[in-house]
């Protein structure tokens, strides 16, 4: 019984450590339906962040990483090395804020 209460309490706690500098917008935007593959992926944040990684999963899998000397910025653009195939995608990003906190998020989009 105590174990159940403990687990329920753990799950009820709002875990939001990964939310310090929310994403303002992205291109493609969340739930976008595109006619053709984008040339790049763009992310705009509320404050300056260092983008660590962008991972595309779905019809095609791709990991985009900024170089080790990539600058801290509120706007990041990552060119896609190849055109994406038609299908559904989830783009997961990770970034680090000025205060050292990690942030993450997901953007869903599809290409007809």
């Amino acid at each position, binding site marked *: 019984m105590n174990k159940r209460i403990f687990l329920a309490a753990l799950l009820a706690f709002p*875990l939001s450590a990964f*939310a310090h500098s929310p994403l303002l917008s992205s291109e493609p935007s969340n739930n976008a339906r595109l006619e053709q593959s984008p040339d790049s992926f763009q992310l705009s944040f509320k404050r300056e962040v*260092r983008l660590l990684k962008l991972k595309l999963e779905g019809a095609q899998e791709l990991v985009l990483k900024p170089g080790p000397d990539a600058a801290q910025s509120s706007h990041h653009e990552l060119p896609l090395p190849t055109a994406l195939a038609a299908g559904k995608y989830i783009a997961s990003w990770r970034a680090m804020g000025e*205060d*050292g906190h*990690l942030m993450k998020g997901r953007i869903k989009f599809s290409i007809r």
Partner: protein
Amino acid sequence: MMGLGDEYLAALLQWGVVTATCLALGSALLSCVYSGNRPFLSLLKQQLRLAACCALLGLVLQTAYTAAEMYDEGLEGAFEPNMYHFIWQSSLGTALALRAAGLLLCLLSSFGRPGLVLPLFGALLSASSFAASGHAVAEPRLLLAVLITVHLLCISFWFAAVPALMRGAFSALRLPQLRDVAETFGGVAALATALVVASGALFILLRFEDIWGLLSSGYGLTLLAKLTLVVVIFALAALHKWRLVPGLQNDGGRMTRRLGQSLALELLLFLAIFVCVAAMTRLFTLPHG
């Protein structure tokens, strides 16, 4: 892949690092106050060495964990050099360097005659590392950094005295030595307590514009739990200062036992406070952050 439990693992690591760092830097500060008291100094040095080694080990684990968390491919990220490059270039790298340097200086001070420079400078570096990253990184930056550093130095000084006094009460010190140590601590701790309250209150007022909004968030509720524990610790400290320590004069054996038990309770309360600190820094974001 990392999942739901990862935040709790990060918080657990944070708890270990914060607790061990505070114990190490607090022991270094206490060794300056008790440099002339050989038996107690010996207890403090043992405590300092153990805590500094645990804190340094914890820092290594925490950094590897952060690299894995950043890379988001399970343990693979802990071996990805680019992630360490990013950490080093960020505010986390500054905090890491300050804390490691401070801990090493504190550790070094535990060998031979400590003097004042090594332990004080080491403690200052370690405490200031907490201002280099996390929620203290905001405007007015310098003032917030000073407040968090003073707060941590005073809390650590107080916290580190508890296990050392407890060991002294249970066996390691003779009654007159214990009485001297406790009375000296009571005098210095009064100033430390005033600084803990003043720096903590000012930090909250400067950092959070909307206090009521703060209290309706997970961060604020955890802060409230922490403050409640602090009030209980203040009550215990008052009991020690005005009842148990003076009682050592007349009824040594019984009061020594009671003091030891009360210190054990105080130690548990401090550990619970550090749980709140770890939760506030690793599980929650600031309401308007």
